[in-house]
């Protein structure tokens, strides 16, 4: 990983939720980098720390009592992990934008679509009322909203889920961010709409050269869109590499188990294999490899020390101690 060519370099990120009593370490020593113009996927099952990782990057936890407790997030020469709140506000929206999982609740129901798009244009780009309106029309057109001029005065309830997600993407792109964080952007949408939105994100990336951090639990989405991907398990990265490397040669038992549970990957006539057991309680994670209680290949060594990522081939890293001997 070369820092010089990265847009964002996350190193040893630790994010802690201070609940009643026990603190939960949702993100525990996560390191990755996002390169300019790439779509970087973050996959894993619910509660593995994908969203917490995203939220850490912009330091907003939706009112949850969470904090970035360690590590660094280098972006544009700044460390977002320690940046003061005032300067963080200038980064958010302007240089890092985010789109959310549920487009039905992510738009303000009392403001028209146009007002919501113009708000960011005026705040971050200092456009006047007229210029902002013109720009809003162009943005809506670019995300594939038909007759954008007449849609500016519409309210969110007059839009379908897919259209709302397009509007949210338009709002996110209003200030030409360098990084777009998309937290499960298609999970709440129909499959056909899902495909359209993913293609839209791909096209916008190609047009603008921005980077995208795409969070999803859907490996199909990863295969379709991501250049590189990190597989998260229980607050840590289990495996990271180029998408085709991960799909062709999964180098972690967890990734392999995920792929075996995927109809397209398992092949015709074979039964899908669910992963036995449950994800660990992050308030008291297992000692050693986080995955060992559910891993068929676990040996004593796996139960003793927490494994770090190591290269298995150029650009492909795994946190499994037994990659080589298992021939994964």
């Amino acid at each position, binding site marked *: 990983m070369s820092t010089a060519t990265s847009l964002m370099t996350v190193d040893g990120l630790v994010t802690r939720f201070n609940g009643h009593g026990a603190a939960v370490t949702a993100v525990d020593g996560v390191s990755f980098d996002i390169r300019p113009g790439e779509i970087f996927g973050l996959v894993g099952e619910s509660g593995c720390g994908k969203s917490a990782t995203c939220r850490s990057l912009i330091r*907003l936890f*939706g009112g949850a009592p969470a904090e970035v407790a360690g590590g660094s997030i280098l972006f544009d020469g700044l460390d977002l992990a320690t940046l003061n709140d005032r300067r963080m506000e*200038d*980064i958010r929206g302007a240089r890092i934008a985010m789109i*959310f999982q549920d487009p039905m*609740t992510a738009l*303000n129901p*009392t*403001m028209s679509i146009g007002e919501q798009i113009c708000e960011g244009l005026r705040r971050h780009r200092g456009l006047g009322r007229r210029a902002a309106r013109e720009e809003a029309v162009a943005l809506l057109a670019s995300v594939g909203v038909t007759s954008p001029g007449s849609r500016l005065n519409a309210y969110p309830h007059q839009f379908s889920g897919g259209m709302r997600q397009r509007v949210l993407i338009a709002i996110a792109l209003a200030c030409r961010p360098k990084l777009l964080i998309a937290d499960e952007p298609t999970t709440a949408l129909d499959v056909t709409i899902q495909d359209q939105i993913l293609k839209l994100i791909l096209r916008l990336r190609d047009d603008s050269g921005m980077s995208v951090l795409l969070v999803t639990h859907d490996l199909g989405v990863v295969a379709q869109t991501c250049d590189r991907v990190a597989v998260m398990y229980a607050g840590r990265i289990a495996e990271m590499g180029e998408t085709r490397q991960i799909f062709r040669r999964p180098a972690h038992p967890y990734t392999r188990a995920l792929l075996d549970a995927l109809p397209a990957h398992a092949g015709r006539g074979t039964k899908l294999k669910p992963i036995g057991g449950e994800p660990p309680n992050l308030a008291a994670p297992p000692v050693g490899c986080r995955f060992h209680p559910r891993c068929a290949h676990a040996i004593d060594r796996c139960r003793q020390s927490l494994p770090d990522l190591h290269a298995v081939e150029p650009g492909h890293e795994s946190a499994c101690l037994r990659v080589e001997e298992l021939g994964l």
Partner: protein
Amino acid sequence: MMAWLSPDTRARFRRNRSLQVGLILLVVLLAITFGGPLLLTTDPIAVDFGQALLPPSASNWFGTDDLGRDVFTRVVTAAQIDLQIAIMCVLLPFLIGTAVGLVSGYIGGKTDIVLMRLVDILWAFPFYVLVIAIVGSLGPSIANMYLAFTLVAWISFARIVRGEVLLIKRMEYVQAAKVLGYSHLRIILRHVLPNAITPAIVFMMADVVLTILAVTSLGFLGLGIQPPTPEWGVMIAEGRNFIFDGWWGSLFPGLAIVYVGVTFALLGDGLDDFLRPKA
């Protein structure tokens, strides 16, 4: 009319009987309140013992009271002062309560704890006890009534708005606004307030009903508007003394209070349906 409203909004208005009737009653009320006094020829205060306690007739629609004053003239004249006080006594608490609720709910933490304990303390006192204590000790005047009602009634609005804000600040669009780097003030005013205000507006309508009762009750107790200024509560109190000889002296101001109450109750109910469509 209403061409600027969306078809959806118009349809919702057309279905909403409470709001329609409430608005009609309100228009009539406002017409009488502000237009009525211009048409009246009799003085609401001038005493004429020759005309005392006349029953309702063509010349004195609501009869005359024990001092020979026309009850109709006095009921109409009183509308202005009663409505003015009732509305101000709701508006001031509404503004203050909403501001406190917004701040308390949005900031949370210690600020929230301090403000809400203050609300709890005020809540522990019966409404009338506090109002009567404040007006009673400061002396009866319109300014003191504003003060008393504002000090006592803001807590309801603060609680309502705070509750809404607690819900809304977790909504994704508020999160999204933060992600877009907007200032807290902008988020509060543009994204939280418009979504949190509806229940408070609905409650405000209901509160007008309670407040007009409270204002007239104070008048009745001699703590509100002072005679001879016509005021419905005062008129009911005065009419009480000759209720068997002239029932009209108390009945008509009483009916006026009922009319205002029904008007605002319907408006509140109608607005509730109109602003918060259920599914």
